[in-house]
C-alpha cells in the first residue's frame, strides 16, 4: 500500500514571523489531526514507544483520538507525560519517537509531536489536568528548581499524597521553559498553565529561594522537617569559548541574551526596564537549540544580518531539525566549519570576530567527525556576538552542601535509584546529565519520585 504523505502543520509565514514573537507552528486542527492519525498503522510492537524516553503509549492515544475520545486520549498521554503540550512542541522527535516510527523506512513518520501537542492543548483548554489531590499522608518533601525535572517530580509525589514544596531561585517558575526557550516556539502561557495545574493539585511554590544560600539542603532536612529532597536545579552556568576578547561589551552568553528577552521581557526601551542592545550584525556561536533560539530571537529584535558560526558541518548540528529549517527560512545565515578564535573591539566594544576554517577528520567519541583546524582564517564585522556553546550545572548547591558528591564538571553523582551521596536526597535532569532535553529531565523527575516513594516507605517501617 502506498503511504499517504505526512500532513503538514500550518505555520506563520517566514517573512511575517521573523518580525514577531508569536508561535511559528500553528498546530493541527481537529480534522488535520484526524487525517494524520489515520496514517498510524497501530503496530503490534510499536517502535515509537520504545524510542520515547517516557514511553508515551503512542498508538493507543492515536487510536482514541480517531475514536473521537479526546478526553481519554489526553488521559492516556498524561499517564506517562504530564507536559504533553510542551513536549509536543519541543521534543527532538526526529531522534526519538518519530525517528523510530516504522513509516520512516518507506517514507515519513507519523507526526507524533504535532498529534501530542494537539491532544495536550485540548486537555489544557478543557482543564483535564487540573485535578486537586485531597489526600495527604502528612510527609513533607522538598523539590529544588521548577524546571521540567522539578515539576514532574512534584506532580508525581503529590499524586501519591505527599506534601510537596517547590523552591525556585528566580522570581518565576518553569526553569529553561520560561527563561530560555522563546515564545515563538513555546508560548509562556502554556508553561504558566501547567504550573497552575500543579498548584491546583496542592503543590506549594516558593520563589526567590536560592537553595544553598537562602536555606541549605541540611536546613531543609534538619530544621524544616522535609523527609526527602529532589534536586532539579538544571544546568544554568554558561560555558565560555576561552578566546581573547570574550569580556568585551556587546558579547553575550545566550543565557543572558535569552533571559533578558524571555524572563525580563526586554524589547525596546522604554517599554522594557531590562533592555536589549543589539546592532545590525550579530554572530551566534554554536549549533544546538540554544544557538537557533538566540539567532532567531536576534532577528526578531531587528538585527539585519544574523549568522551562525558552527565548527562542524550541517549534518552534525545538534538542534531539532524543525528549528534548523525554520532558522534557514527566516534568513539566518549558516557559516559552517568555522570556529571563532578571537574577538576584537574598539573602545572595548566588540567589532570583529576572527574565525578559523575547519575541516572534518575522523569520528570522535561523540560519533561525529572531529573538526580540525586548517590554518585559514576569515574576519567578519559584528556589533554583537552571542555565545551558545553549552551550559554546566550551577555551583551554588555543590559549594554549599557538605557530603554531596559531584563530577569534575559539576554534575551531581547519583546511584541507580537517582539518590545522591546524601541519604534521602535525590537528583535528576540537567544537573545530573548535563544539558539535555525537556523530556529526559521530566522522565528523571518522575523516576526519582518513584524511588523517593520507595525510600520513604521503607523508612517508615
Amino acid at each position, binding site marked *: 500500500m502506498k503511504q499517504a504523505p505526512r500532513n503538514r502543520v500550518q505555520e506563520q509565514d517566514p517573512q511575517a514571523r521573523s518580525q514577531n514573537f508569536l508561535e511559528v507552528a500553528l498546530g493541527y486542527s481537529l480534522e488535520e489531526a484526524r487525517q494524520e492519525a489515520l496514517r498510524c498503522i497501530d503496530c503490534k510492537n510499536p517502535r515509537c514507544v520504545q524510542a520515547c524516553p517516557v514511553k508515551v503509549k503512542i498508538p493507543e492515544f492515536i487510536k482514541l483520538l480517531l475514536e473521537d475520545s479526546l478526553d481519554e486520549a489526553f488521559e492516556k498521554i498524561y499517564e506517562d507525560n504530564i507536559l504533553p503540550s510542551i513536549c509536543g512542541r519541543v521534543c527532538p522527535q526526529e531522534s526519538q519517537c518519530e525517528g523510530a516510527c516504522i513509516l520512516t523506512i518507506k517514507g515519513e513518520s507519523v507526526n507524533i509531536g504535532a498529534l501530542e501537542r494537539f491532544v495536550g492543548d485540548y486537555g489544557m483548554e478543557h482543564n483535564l489536568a487540573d485535578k486537586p489531590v485531597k489526600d495527604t499522608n502528612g510527609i513533607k518533601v522538598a523539590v529544588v528548581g521548577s524546571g521540567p525535572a522539578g515539576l514532574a517530580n512534584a506532580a508525581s509525589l503529590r499524586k501519591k499524597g505527599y506534601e510537596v514544596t517547590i523552591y525556585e*531561585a528566580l522570581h518565576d517558575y518553569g526553569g529553561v521553559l520560561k527563561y530560555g526557550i522563546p515564545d515563538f516556539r513555546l508560548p509562556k502561557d502554556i508553561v504558566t498553565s501547567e504550573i497552575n495545574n500543579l498548584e491546583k493539585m496542592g503543590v506549594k511554590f516558593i520563589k*526567590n*529561594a*536560592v537553595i544553598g544560600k537562602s*536555606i541549605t539542603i541540611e536546613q531543609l532536612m534538619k530544621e524544616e522537617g522535609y523527609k526527602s529532597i529532589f534536586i532539579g536545579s538544571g544546568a544554568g552556568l554558561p560555558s565560555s569559548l576561552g578566546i581573547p576578547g570574550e*569580556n568585551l561589551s556587546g558579547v553575550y552568553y545566550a*543565557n543572558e541574551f535569552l533571559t*533578558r528577552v524571555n524572563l525580563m521581557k526586554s524589547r525596546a526601551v522604554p517599554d522594557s*526596564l531590562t533592555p536589549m542592545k543589539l546592532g545590525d550584525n550579530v554572530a551566534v556561536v554554536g549549533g544546538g537549540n540554544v544557538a537557533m533560539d538566540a539567532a532567531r530571537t536576534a532577528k526578531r529584535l531587528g538585527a539585519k544580518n544574523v549568522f551562525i558560526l558552527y565548527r562542524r558541518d550541517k549534518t552534525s548540528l545538534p538542534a531539532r531539525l524543525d528549528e534548523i529549517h525554520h532558522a534557514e527560512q527566516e534568513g539566518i545565515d549558516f557559516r559552517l566549519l568555522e570556529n571563532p578564535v578571537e574577538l576584537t573591539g574598539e573602545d572595548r566594544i566588540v567589532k570583529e570576530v576572527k574565525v578559523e576554517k575547519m575541516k572534518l577528520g575522523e569520528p570522535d567519541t561523540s560519533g561525529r567527525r572531529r573538526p580540525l583546524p586548517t590554518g585559514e582564517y576569515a574576519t567578519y564585522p559584528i556589533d554583537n556576538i552571542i555565545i551558545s556553546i553549552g551550559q554546566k550545572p550551577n*555551583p551554588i548547591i555543590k559549594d554549599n552542601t557538605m557530603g554531596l558528591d559531584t563530577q569534575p564538571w559539576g554534575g551531581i553523582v547519583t546511584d541507580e535509584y537517582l539518590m545522591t551521596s546524601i541519604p534521602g536526597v535525590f537528583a535528576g535532569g540537567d544537573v545530573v546529565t548535563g544539558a539535555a532535553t525537556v523530556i529526559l529531565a521530566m522522565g528523571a523527575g518522575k523516576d526519582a519520585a518513584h524511588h523517593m516513594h520507595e525510600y520513604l516507605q521503607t523508612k517508615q517501617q
Partner: protein
Amino acid sequence: MYKIVEKKQLNKDVDFMAVEAPLVARNAEPGHFIILRVDKEGERIPLTIAGIRGNLVDIIYQKMGYSTQLLGKKEVGDTIEDFVGPLGQAAHIRDKKHVVGVAGGVGSAPMLPQLKAYKAQGTKVSLILGARNKEYLILKEEYAPYVDHIYLATDDGSEGTKGLVTDVLKPLLEQDDTIDHVVAIGPVIMMKFVTMMAKAHKRSIDVSLNPIMIDGTGMCGNCRVSIAGKTYFGCIDGPDFPGEDVDFDELMSRQSYYKDEEHVCYLKLKNETSAT
C-alpha cells in the same frame, strides 16, 4: 511579597529601608547582597545587605535611576514584589592588625558590616568617608562605635578635608606602618585609584565590584569580571575580590554599555511623575 517595616531618608538621594525577608535573613553574612524587583514589571537590581535584625534585612540605596527611584516611592507598610538572597560570597575578613576602610558615597553602606566584623575580631579599624559634600557623608554616627579613627573628605570642602579620599589615604599609608590592609567600596573609578595607591605602598586591598547583574545566581554571565586575566562571575565568586589584579577599565566599560537605555528609562520616570 516583602513588607517594608522601616524607612528613613539619609539624605536627598539616599534612603535606608528595613524589609521583612526571613529567607534572606536566615543565613546572611557581611558582604552578601540581595536582588529585588520593586513591582511585577520591575528589573532585577542588586543591593548590599547593610544589616540583619531578626527577620529584617536592612538596605541602603542611592536613588540613581528608574528602579532605585521607584523603590524610593515605597513607604512603610508597602510591599516589594521580589527580594532574594543572600547572594554572593561573604566578605573576606582577613587576619589583619589595622584595616583602613575607604568608602565613597553610598559605598559607606556595604562597608559598615565589614568593618563591624573586623572590629569584632580585634582588628584596629580606620575609616575614610568621602562624598560630594557634607550632606552625602552618610552613616557617620552608625560607624562611631566600630572605628578607631574616622576621616572625612568632601569634594567641596563642606566637611572634612577638601579633596578626594586618596588625598587622605596617601599620608596615612605613608605615615602609619601599622596599617596592613585596605578595603575600598565605592565608584569603580575610586576603587581603581585606591587600589593603585595601596599597591604603590605595598598594602593588600579588597574591593567590592558592582558589575551589572540580572539573576545573581551564576546563570547569565552578564556580571563577569577579569582578574589577572581570568574570568570570574561577580555574583557568585564576588562581589568582593582582592583589588590588585582587577581589570577596572573593563568593568567600567561593561557597566556603561547600557547607559543610553538607562537614561531613556529615567526620562520615562520623570515624564510619568510630571504627568501625575
